[in-house]
C-alpha cells in the first residue's frame, strides 16, 4: 500500500518494544477509544536514564508505527533528551506521515511526556510545569 512509507510499514508490521513493563516507574496513556487511538508507554528509569521502554497501542497503522519509532528514539536516552522528542522528529524518523495522520505522532510525543511526568510525580521529583502543560489535562475518556 502506498498510503505509508516503507519505514512506517516496517514499524507497523514489526513493532519494536511492544508490551508491558511490570515494574515500570513511569506510565503514560493518551488518546481515547472514541477517537480510535489509545497509546500507553511504560518506562523503566534508572539514574535519569530510560533503561527500558515498552508500549501498547490501540489504533491505526501509523499510530502503532509512531509508538514503535518513538520508543526506539528514547530507549537508553537521558530523560532530558526524551523530553525534547517532538512529534515532528517521530514523523521524520518514519520518513513522513500523511497529513491527516500527524496526530498519531503527536500522541506518541504526549504519551512519553505523560510517562515521564508520572515518574516525576511518583518519585517526588520537582519538574517544570510548563514542559507538561499540554499533557496535564484534557486526555483520557
Amino acid at each position: 500500500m502506498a498510503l505509508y512509507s516503507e519505514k512506517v510499514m516496517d514499524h507497523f508490521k514489526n513493532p519494536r518494544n511492544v508490551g508491558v513493563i511490570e515494574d515500570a516507574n513511569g506510565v503514560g496513556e493518551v488518546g481515547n477509544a472514541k477517537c480510535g487511538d489509545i497509546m500507553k508507554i511504560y518506562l523503566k528509569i534508572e539514574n535519569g536514564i530510560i533503561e527500558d521502554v515498552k508500549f501498547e497501542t490501540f489504533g491505526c497503522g501509523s499510530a502503532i508505527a509512531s509508538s514503535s519509532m518513538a520508543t526506539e528514539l528514547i530507549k537508553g536516552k537521558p530523560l532530558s533528551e526524551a523530553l525534547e522528542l517532538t512529534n515532528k522528529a517521530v514523523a521524520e524518523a518514519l520518513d513522513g506521515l500523511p497529513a491527516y495522520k500527524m496526530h498519531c505522532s503527536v500522541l506518541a510525543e504526549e504519551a512519553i511526556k505523560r510517562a515521564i511526568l508520572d515518574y516525576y510525580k511518583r518519585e517526588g521529583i520537582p519538574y517544570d510545569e510548563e514542559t507538561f502543560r499540554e499533557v496535564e489535562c484534557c486526555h483520557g475518556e
Partner: protein
Amino acid sequence: MQVYLDNAATTKMSRTAIDAMFPYFDEYYGNPSSLHSMGQRAKEVLEEARVCVASCLGAVPDEILFTSGGSEADNQAIRSAATIGARKGKKHILTTAFEHHAVLHTLKKLEKEGFEVTYLSVGRVGNVTPEQVAEAIREDTCLVTMMTANNEIGSILPIAEIGAVCRERKVLFHTDAVQAVGHIPMNVQEMQIDMLSLSAHKFHGPKGVGVLYARKGIALTNLIEGGAQERGKRAGTENLAGIVGLAAALKEATDHLSENAEKVAALRDKLIQGLSGIPHSILNGDRVRRLPGNVHFCFEGIEGESLLLLLDEYGIEASSGSACTSGSLDPSHVLLAIGHPHEIAHGSLRLSLSEYTTEEEIDFALEVIPKVVERLRNMSPIWRDKMNGIKPFLI
C-alpha cells in the same frame, strides 16, 4: 495467496463483459449522435443495450437512462423528485439513517435549500419496516428514498413492501440498488419502484457507468446540460463501450442470479460461522435478509485500519468502515446508526464475496483473521484493561 474480499467496493470484470466492450473501442468507435453508418451502428448498439437493461429490471427501454455511475443516478433521482415536489409545495423527504453518501450528501444540500428530511432509525439489526415508512409519510412528502441493500452491513430492506406503501400514498419512491442489482432479484414493476440507481462495476461490469431507471411520466431534472443525448436528460457523448459492458454484465448476472447467490451465500455463511468463534466479536446487519456476499463484523479492542493493513500483508484484501481509512476521526455512520459506540465502530471489518470467491480462499481467511485479531489485541492497552476487568467488555 491473494484473496480479494472487497467485492462491495468493486468487482473483477467478467470476461463476457470485457469481450462485449472491446469492439466499441476498436472497430466500432462511432458516436451514436452521428448520422453516418458508423454513428448509426453505435446508436443501434446503444438502444440494444437499453433494451437488455430494461428487460433485466422489468422496465421498458424508455425508462432507462445511462449515467456515469450510481452516485450520479442517486443525485439525479433525488434532485428530480425535489424539483417535482417543490412545484407542488411538498418539501419533505423520507430516508434512512444509513444511506450511501451519494444520497445523504444530496439530502444535506436539499436541507440547506429548505427541504425537511426525516431519517428513519434502522434499529440494532440495521433495517426498516414498511410500517415505519407508512407512519413517517406526511402530506408534504415528495420522496421516499431508501437503499435496497446496505453497502456496509449487507441488510436487505423490504423494498417491495415499502414500494407498495409509497404507491398507495402516492409518494415517489427511489431506491439506491447499487449493492443489490445483479445479486438479488430486482423487478421495478413488481416492487413498485419509481426510480432506481445501479452501477455496473458492482456486478462485474466496468467502472464509470450506471443507470437511472425512472418510471415513465416522471419528469427528470438535468444535472448535466448540453446535447440531447439520453432523451435530453443527460448530456454528453454516451460511454458506449461502458454501456455495452454494463448490459452484458447485467444480463450475465441476471441469467445466473440464483445459482450464484446460492453458491456465494454458502461461502458467506461458512465465513460468518467461523468468525463468530472469535470472542467479543459481533456480526453486523440483518442475519436473514442479507446480501449473499456480505460479511461484516466488529471486533472489540482493535482498530479497523491496522486490521486491514495486516490482512493485506497476508494477501487478504478487505474493507472497513474505519474512520482512519477515510481521514476522519468519526467512524462509519452506518455502524453508529445501528447503535454501536464509537469504540466498537472503530473495530470493523467488511468482507464481501463474489461468485469468483473460492472455498479455499474462505478457508484461508478463516485461518488468518483470528490470528491477526489476536495479534492486534495483544498490543492493545484497551484490550488488556478489559481482560483485567478494569474496563467492561461492550460486546
